[in-house]
């Protein structure tokens, strides 16, 4: 479908917010659930946007930048795939193709992030100079410039995509054979595991593995909603913390408030 000027401007603003948030990580405008739904909303494709957001969110659940590990970029993936979904005009039937398109975009976004993070180095050097002069306004201005660069990182590719005629996007999407789109949808179902694996690798240790086992077994009871599972998980965590505190093993030997430890130290 072809978009009105008004819708195009709104989509570019959303893309800008997503780009900013991709680095700030505060309001979460870059998360697929939010970005795709918003783009769906302003272009009159709310249902398809929400569906795409939900599916992509499941894939991106474990994507977080920790230390040196770089996760795929959720911002470009959600914004660009939502735009392609809207231009393709297939509504909810275009969702699985859009998901498949999103993944390579997440990789492209990663390189753009690295470029901008490198460009920020001269900016902080300019801040150093301003600091020497006690020029507060200039530091503020430079910080805003840096944030704008992050916004443009997504807004520019989004604007470029919007200028491709909808008919071209549709031709390409229609050209894709059925076995390819179906196969990519199947791949999308499996890709979810990668994000989870990233997070589990970060948290797993001997002590918490039993809770993984309980969670896995209990999840098979389909009557339990996610909220119910969350409540169960919180209850288990509290139980464990309280019990282990009482038995004195909670924090090992470095806990000074531990009576057992004091007794042992006395001997």
């Amino acid at each position, binding site marked *: 479908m072809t978009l009105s000027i008004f819708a195009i401007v709104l989509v570019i603003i959303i893309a800008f917010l997503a780009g900013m948030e991709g680095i700030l990580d505060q309001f979460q405008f870059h998360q697929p659930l939010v970005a795709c739904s918003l783009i769906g909303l302003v272009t009159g494709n709310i249902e398809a946007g929400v569906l795409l957001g939900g599916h992509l969110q499941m894939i991106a659940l474990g994507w977080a930048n920790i230390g040196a590990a770089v996760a795929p970029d959720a911002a470009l993936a959600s914004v660009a795939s939502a735009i392609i979904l809207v231009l393709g005009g297939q509504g909810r039937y275009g969702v699985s193709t859009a998901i498949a398109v999103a993944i390579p975009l997440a990789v492209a976004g990663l390189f753009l992030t690295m470029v901008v993070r490198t460009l920020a180095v001269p900016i902080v050097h300019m801040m150093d100079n301003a600091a020497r002069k006690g020029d507060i306004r200039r530091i503020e201005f430079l910080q805003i410039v840096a944030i704008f660069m992050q916004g443009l990182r997504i807004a520019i590719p989004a604007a470029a995509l919007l200028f491709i005629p909808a008919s071209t996007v549709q031709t390409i999407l229609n050209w894709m054979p059925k076995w390819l789109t179906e196969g990519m949808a199947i*791949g999308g179902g499996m890709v979810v595991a990668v994000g989870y*694996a990233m997070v589990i690798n970060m948290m797993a240790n001997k002590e918490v593995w039993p809770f993984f086992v309980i969670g896995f077994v209990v999840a098979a009871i389909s009557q339990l909603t996610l909220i119910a599972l969350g409540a169960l*998980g919180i209850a288990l965590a509290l139980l464990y913390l309280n019990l282990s505190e009482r038995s004195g093993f909670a924090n090992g030997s470095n806990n000074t408030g531990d009576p057992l430890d004091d007794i042992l130290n006395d001997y």
Partner: protein
Amino acid sequence: MEHKIQLTKKDRLAVAWRSTFLQGSWNYERMQNGGWVFSMIPAIKRLYTTTEDRAAALKRHLEFFNTHPYLASPILGVTLALEEERANGATVDDVTIQGVKVGMMGPLAGVGDPVFWFTVRPMLGALGAALAMDGKIIGPILFFILWNLIRMGFMWYTQEFGYRTGAKITDNLSGGLLQKITKGASILGMFVLAALVERWVSINFKSIVSKIDLDEKAVVDWAHIPSGTEGIKQALIQAQSGLALTQEKVTTLQNNLDQLIPGLMPLLLTFLCMWLLRKKVSPIIIILGLFIIGILGHVIGLL
């Protein structure tokens, strides 16, 4: 006695709001330093009046800094308290301030990642996404509102806590509290992640393992079903009482696997991904590989 310069609540709110942009100039050299000085500016303006003092303060806060973006708030609070003392003549030198910042940023980042990125966001995200995949608009709205309420509340109150406690905060936090929070979050996170693996990683093996001809008595008695709506009714009643609809019982590989334990293949796939990640295979490569497997598997009829 000279009047004491104090930060007003408005100043502290301005610092909290600006800390939203902490990562805005994230760079490979000193990471969050630009955002940190940007956040401190309302306090610097209030506490120091001469250009020299301001220049010194700005330089002091442009040093290397990096932590979890939300856990920077308690550190900001402590730094505000220290700067306030310094502006009032106490001997708080640059080394003390930088020492407090560096001393706190490591342990606090270690709490922020498991709590926010590995527990709260996956939980709220999965909740919202599950609703969204049913086409419910409340999904994204719920995620957005809950997340931001938690985030803003956390940032403001921990900053105030840091400001009130000052440098003593390290004593408060080292008393096992941080370890407890981290452990609690890990337990909850592992529990919920396991549930997510079971429910949302999907592999469906289509290959047919066996086709069995069922006994005639196990199948809906189609020969004696009357026509019309009455017939549909009878057929449904028979099917509900446990009779099969067709003569052949098709068992796919998936049926067999689900009988062992539902979600076994998603679990094994997750373990495979974990193993590959530990072998330093890039997540991007794994993701692309899985798409290729999906397409190939579909073409040959396995998936």
